[in-house]
């Protein structure tokens, strides 16, 4: 917020210029021509016309501030109004507004300001008025996007259903959200208006009577060899002003919108800082013959302040060859994080303080990205939850499958293509050749999930990790996908770790299940056994929450005042 203080001081200097400065900005004195810095009465010297540089500098502040205010005010009043209207209403109204703003945006702005000089007579206020119009599309787009975002929130629908008028909704629900971004961009707009105004003044647009940084720089520049300091003062002042606006905008953004997205390394595997420690972890029965075994796995993510926050608190889990293991839990229980850890695809900020993940006896934690690449796709494969977002929208199905196949097994492009077509046919896609040429947005969700499954099983992996593979799909499609997984497993003999929150899915496809709560596995066992006789209280609670198939609402419709017994 130093920038804000600097801006305040500068603005005050400008306002009190008549009292601070000894001379008027245009008072020329022959005796003072090119007076050096520190000359009596001329603290910063005088220019080649004998005008007091210090005084001109102070008066120039006012020119800049007025420019910034006019430019920003015009841009905001036009952009905000149109943005709210266009964003809230959509349809034809938005179409029309959009068209006009697109037109303004394609105008070569600064050129127009120059070209229209005969009209503006170079008055910087009129020029900035036009510049404000040219800046309006930026604000419009910002406001429109935010408004459209809010408009799609259900709370706006709820407000409409509650009987709020449009104006009230805009004022109460939309404006508070729009405010922040608009205030932030105002700071940037002001900086850019000042920059443009001084640029134009430097060119010579504008009256010579009006002191401004641009004009002063131009004078100083032509006078460079006489007194090289003359252009430094206005340049310095201009730099400090625009920089203060930008920095002020930046700190406003940090204050109002919180941290901006941080970059994180794509390929860094979590917790690879040193060997995993094996503490005395409780061993799961039947670990000896496990294909994928996770032991005492701890996982943390940094919270906003940077201190690690635990997500997994010692997960132990074993998947045997060829079996289907259901990993069940409610949201936030850590089941998906366990799956990502097993695949080694945790985001860069995650870290594994302790624990072990072994695939067929080989420790995976601590392996390099290159070593993991050799395992992924070949030995361990993944089917995601949301089929659409897991395909790259810019490449055809065929291109994505071929690349993945070739990454996991070194086959030629044509062999990979042939195999891809074969696989697509295998997962029940009617016209594989045609599907290869389609883009993800051209196929349905169920079909996309088949494509993802086909790619995952391409190299006959030994473990398939499926993270809620049917949650995003309709029940009829879900049944088909579960059938497909069951058939593929029977054929290829792979083990499946199926992450789900749906006990119906577990009952349908899993042989064993593990129940997770708060980053721990609380119960593991045969599916039939756990359903019949759950041991852990949490499992019991979950199973009791399942809506009973046989219960149908049998009381008659009721009218106000009637009472009746509770359900169950």
């Amino acid at each position, binding site marked *: 917020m130093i920038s804000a203080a600097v801006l305040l001081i500068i603005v005050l200097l400008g306002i009190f210029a008549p009292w601070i400065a000894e001379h008027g900005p245009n008072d020329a004195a022959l005796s003072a021509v090119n007076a050096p810095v520190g000359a009596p009465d001329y603290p910063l010297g005088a220019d080649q016309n004998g005008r007091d540089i210090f005084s001109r500098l102070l008066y120039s502040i006012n020119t800049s501030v007025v420019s910034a205010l006019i430019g920003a005010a015009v841009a905001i009043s036009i952009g905000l109004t149109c943005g709210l209207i266009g964003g809230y209403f959509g349809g034809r109204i938005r179409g029309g507004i959009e068209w006009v703003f697109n037109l303004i945006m394609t105008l070569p702005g600064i050129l127009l300001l120059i070209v229209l000089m005969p009209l503006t007579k170079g008055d910087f206020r009129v020029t900035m008025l036009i510049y404000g119009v040219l800046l309006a599309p930026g604000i419009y787009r910002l406001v429109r996007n935010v408004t459209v975002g809010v408009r799609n929130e259900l709370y706006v629908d709820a407000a409409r259903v509650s009987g709020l008028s449009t104006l009230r909704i805009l004022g109460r629900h939309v404006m508070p959200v729009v405010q922040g971004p608009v205030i932030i961009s105002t700071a940037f707009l002001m900086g850019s208006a000042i920059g443009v105004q*001084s640029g134009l003044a430097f060119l010579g647009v504008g009256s010579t009577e009006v002191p401004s940084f641009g004009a002063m720089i131009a004078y100083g520049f032509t006078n460079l060899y006489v007194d090289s300091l003359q252009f430094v003062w206005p340049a310095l002042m201009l730099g400090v002003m625009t920089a203060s606006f930008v920095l002020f905008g930046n700190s406003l953004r940090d204050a109002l919108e919180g941290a901006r997205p941080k970059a994180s*390394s794509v390929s860094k595997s979590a917790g690879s800082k040193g060997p995993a420690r094996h503490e005395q972890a409780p061993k799961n029965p039947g670990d000896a013959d496990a294909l994928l075994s996770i032991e005492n796995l701890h996982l943390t993510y940094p919270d906003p302040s940077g201190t690690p926050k635990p997500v997994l608190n010692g997960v132990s889990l074993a998947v045997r060859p060829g079996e289907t293991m259901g990993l069940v839990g409610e949201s936030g229980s850590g089941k998906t994080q366990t799956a990502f850890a097993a695949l080694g695809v945790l985001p860069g900020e995650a870290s594994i303080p302790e624990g072990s993940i072994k695939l067929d006896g080989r420790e995976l934690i601590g392996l390099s990205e290159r070593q993991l690449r050799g395992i992924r796709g070949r030995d361990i494969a993944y089917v995601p939850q949301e089929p659409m977002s897991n395909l790259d929208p810019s490449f055809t199905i065929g291109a994505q499958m071929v690349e*993945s196949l070739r990454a996991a097994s070194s086959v030629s492009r044509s062999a990979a293509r042939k195999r891809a077509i074969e696989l697509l046919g295998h997962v029940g896609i009617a016209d594989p050749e045609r599907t290869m040429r389609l883009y993800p947005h051209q196929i349905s969700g169920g079909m996309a999930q088949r494509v993802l499954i086909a790619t995952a099983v391409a190299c006959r992996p030994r473990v398939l990790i499926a993270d809620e593979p049917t949650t995003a799909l309709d029940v009829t499609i879900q049944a088909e996908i579960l059938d497909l997984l069951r058939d593929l497993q029977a054929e290829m003999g792979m083990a499946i770790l199926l992450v789900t929150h749906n006990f119906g899915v577990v009952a349908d496809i899993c042989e064993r299940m593990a129940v997770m709560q708060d980053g721990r596995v609380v119960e593991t066992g045969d599916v039939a056994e756990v359903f019949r006789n759950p041991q852990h209280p949490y499992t019991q609670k979950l199973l009791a929450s399942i809506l009973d198939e046989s219960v149908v609402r049998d009381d008659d419709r009721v009218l106000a005042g009637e009472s009746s017994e509770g359900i169950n």
Partner: protein
Amino acid sequence: MLAYILRRVLTGAVLGVLVTFLTFWLLSFSFDGVVANVLGPAASPSAVAALKADLGLDRPLIVQYLDWLGGVFGGDFGVSFFTSEPVTDAVVSRLGVTLSIVLIALALSVVVSIILGVLAASRAGVIDRVSQGVSLLGLLLPNLLIAIVLVVVFAINLRLLPATGYTPFGESPLRWAASITIPVIVLVINGVSNMSAQIRGTMIGELRKDYVRTLRTRGVPTWSIVYKHALRNAAAPALVVLSLEFIAMFGGALIIENVFALPGFGSFAFNSSIQGDIPVIMGVTVFSVMLVVGVNLLTDLINGWLNPKARIY
């Protein structure tokens, strides 16, 4: 595809007509001043009227405009009120200087921005901080200041490069390159600061998407994920910025040319506006609108090629 281009060119033409008419209408308020400029301050009212008739400025506005527009579609932009030079020749020779600076700067900015933005997003750490520093620097200072600082340091103090003046490419390619180096650097600093921040932001968002994780689980190498998949998806929003950046650079070039005394579009437009040289002003407007329309069409075509969902043709 061809139909799409044709439609876009037509829309561009409509835009051009609209903008030029608007300009013409706004300029019409200052026609009297223009005539006074040509004749000098001491001209008699009858001489003013005679010249107005001679230049055709006394006809109804719409007739004048349509007359001019007819000429434009026939390839005739008229001649300058002051030098009698054909407008097309004058505009093209000046535009060449500005455009060469802008296009070189744009190309360099794109390359640097992509490298910086992608590295910052995918490697994080030091590179990320450097790239953020660069983009802040460009935002902090107006073009004009950067230009002046560079001139003072490199041309005047170190005498490495010419401070001002322009050598045509045909005369001496080496001196041509030297004469545009500083202006290009100024524009590149600004361009990189805008575009690298944009590319960094989009790439960060892209690299967090589900498909990136899925590609990793299949053993696809990191370079392919970053440069083939994520970058391609990040390109669409970057292209929008690119076309806006072109307009911004064009505007910036108009001002900084003046620092270097380059005989470009900016000083040309400025002088003709000061004089009120209507045919030249109109020519300047038409050419710049055409330029912008062309660049927008180009970026849309590239976007369609990169992004299958945006293929509207």
